[in-house]
């Protein structure tokens, strides 16, 4: 079959399935119809899409931590602890499972049993199998999402969705470029078309499952327009396969105006492009990630970064905020540290949620700028794909039209270089091959120049390095010392 942005025909999907389920013994446990029945019996307050809708209606920001450990009981206990203060919960998958290295995941489970504590950086859901995943849903009182970073996440999706998870993070671009080195983009997009089609089939069976492309990408100085463009492409790919509940994401940049503008523009752009491409009748929400780059080691300082993220999420009116912890710079957090991050965020989001309206007028110019950039890039992607978004995405990465700063993938050009301006907004230092118009280029150059003058140095790569370290060293703009 051709590689293109077209709904996978049922015959083809059914033909692929045995191979997917056969990749690891637990795959045999999957029974789609039984899964659908289980979902139908799920109470409302365990359903992710319901929680998202309610939050937007009530203008509340949902709080979601990341969390996953090697063993089932410990994992459930962890989520139960976090459920005290979090609105929706995660099951974060370990990094071996993300690479489909189930043998190594098994070693990690075994060694964790011996060590008496988790040696894995997440919950190896595939190895644990369907029954274990089901237990999570049954014993945790709130909606649970699978959060990972898996380029081929087909088996993981089959297992966890059948088990009753009601939201699934990732996408063919956002779980490839920042998370892998060599996986071809066409391969990961195809594999994610499978996942989205699976979600579409649940939808057709009356079971709504939320899908969330991973917004922050490399988490490091990603300009909003680039992550927005990719989020919208992943949204289009998902809609085509029948997904009907989408949460588009964005990782905090650090500048108040840019971040608020980013969330507003993300919603507006998504609606525009989805409509223009002929999709209606879907549920759209946004997720704001607290600072995804390097954190300060000191826990009090980490609390400040966490709180600022929560503040901006609330002021921007995001539907959901992904919460960091005071242990971020050091290692996977204990349950207590994780809960602390949620509590700090809870305080600040509920303190600020009534002040959303105040900044809208102010951020309008930045909204317009982001829109213009995204529209330019998306048009170029569509052209590259001769009208097809799947082909367009692959070709755009090859050409550097889409380019994610600091991503590890060899399929990413890595020519686009971001840098902060004098107020800490992320601008472009080197445009690489991204086809921005001349006015936009002039704007970025002027902003970077302004900072360079303030610092008495030429725009240079050291500036970018300084910006990478800045928040972990207690600044936003990486000024020379």
């Amino acid at each position, binding site marked *: 079959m051709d590689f293109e942005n077209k709904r996978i025909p049922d015959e083809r999907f059914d033909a692929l399935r045995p191979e997917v389920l056969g990749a690891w013994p637990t795959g045999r446990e999957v029974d789609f119809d039984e899964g659908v029945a289980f979902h139908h019996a799920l109470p409302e307050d365990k359903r992710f899409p319901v929680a998202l809708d309610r939050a937007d209606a009530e203008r509340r920001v949902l709080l979601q931590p990341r969390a996953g450990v090697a063993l089932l009981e410990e994992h459930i206990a962890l989520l139960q602890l976090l459920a005290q203060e979090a609105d929706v919960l995660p099951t974060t998958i370990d*990094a*071996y499972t*993300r*690479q489909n*290295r189930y043998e*190594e995941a098994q*070693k*990690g489970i075994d*060694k964790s049993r011996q060590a008496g*504590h*988790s*040696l*894995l*950086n997440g919950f190896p859901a595939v190895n644990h199998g369907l029954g274990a995943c089901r237990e999570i849903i049954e014993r945790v009182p709130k909606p649970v999402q699978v959060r990972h*970073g898996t380029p081929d996440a087909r088996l993981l999706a089959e297992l966890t969705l059948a088990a009753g998870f009601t939201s699934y993070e990732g996408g063919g671009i956002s779980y490839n470029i*920042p*998370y*892998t*080195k*060599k996986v071809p983009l066409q391969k990961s997009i195809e594999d994610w078309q499978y996942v989205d089609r699976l979600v579409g089939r649940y939808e057709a069976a009356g079971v709504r499952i939320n899908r969330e492309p991973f917004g922050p990408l*490399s988490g*490091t100085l990603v300009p909003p327009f680039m992550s927005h463009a990719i989020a919208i492409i992943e949204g289009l790919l998902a809609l085509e396969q029948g997904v009907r509940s989408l949460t588009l994401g964005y990782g905090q940049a650090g500048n108040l105006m840019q971040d608020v503008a980013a969330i507003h523009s993300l919603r507006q752009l998504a609606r525009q492009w989805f409509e223009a491409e002929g999709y209606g009748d879907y549920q759209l929400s946004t997720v704001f990630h607290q600072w995804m*780059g*390097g954190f300060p*080691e000191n826990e009090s300082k980490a609390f400040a970064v966490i709180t600022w993220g929560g503040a901006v999420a609330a002021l921007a009116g995001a539907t959901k905020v992904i919460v960091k912890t005071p*242990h971020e*710079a*050091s*290692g*996977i*957090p*204990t349950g207590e*540290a994780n809960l602390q991050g949620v509590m700090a965020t809870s305080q600040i989001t509920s303190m600020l949620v009534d002040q959303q309206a105040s900044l809208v007028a102010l951020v309008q110019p930045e909204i317009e700028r982001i829109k213009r950039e995204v529209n330019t890039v998306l048009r170029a992607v569509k052209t590259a794909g001769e009208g097809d978004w799947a082909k367009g995405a692959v070709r755009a990465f090859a050409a550097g039209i889409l380019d994610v700063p*600091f*991503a*590890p993938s060899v399929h990413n050009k890595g020519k686009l270089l971001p840098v902060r301006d004098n107020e800490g907004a992320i601008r472009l230092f080197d445009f690489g091959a991204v086809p921005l118009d001349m006015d936009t280029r002039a704007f970025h150059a002027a902003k970077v120049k302004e900072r360079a003058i303030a610092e008495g140095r030429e725009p240079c*790569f050291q500036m970018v*390095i300084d910006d*990478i370290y800045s928040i972990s060293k207690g600044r936003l703009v990486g000024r020379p010392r």
Partner: protein
Amino acid sequence: MSTHTIVLGVIGADCHAVGNKILEAFFTRAGYRVVNLGVMVSQDEFIDAAIETGAAAILVSSLYGHGEIDCAGLRDRCLERGLDRILLYVGGNLVVGKADLAATREKFLAMGYDRVFPPSVELDEVAVLLRQDLAAKDEGR
């Protein structure tokens, strides 16, 4: 003064690329010939590259928490494959969780690494140590 070659990479299934890119820039500027293998590097890939380039040191990064599993046995594997004088440095968020630094250091020293660094290490200090360690090695030659 001879220009040493050093091999850089992030071990295992680890995709954290930012620190790796900075290490490359830093050690290049510090005057080394840097062979950067990027992320998701297996033990054998490290050794192949070191043999091929006659490297004096391998700088292993592990950020994602599986360092304890991924890094074990690298020293033995080096010896097996005839790399009997190579410096092994390791750094990053080496274990799962916020751990006691001293305990982590012990653990990795016992695995045969010559030096063990936390993520907060100042690279200038690493450069000093590397210069000293390489000089001592050259003298011992």
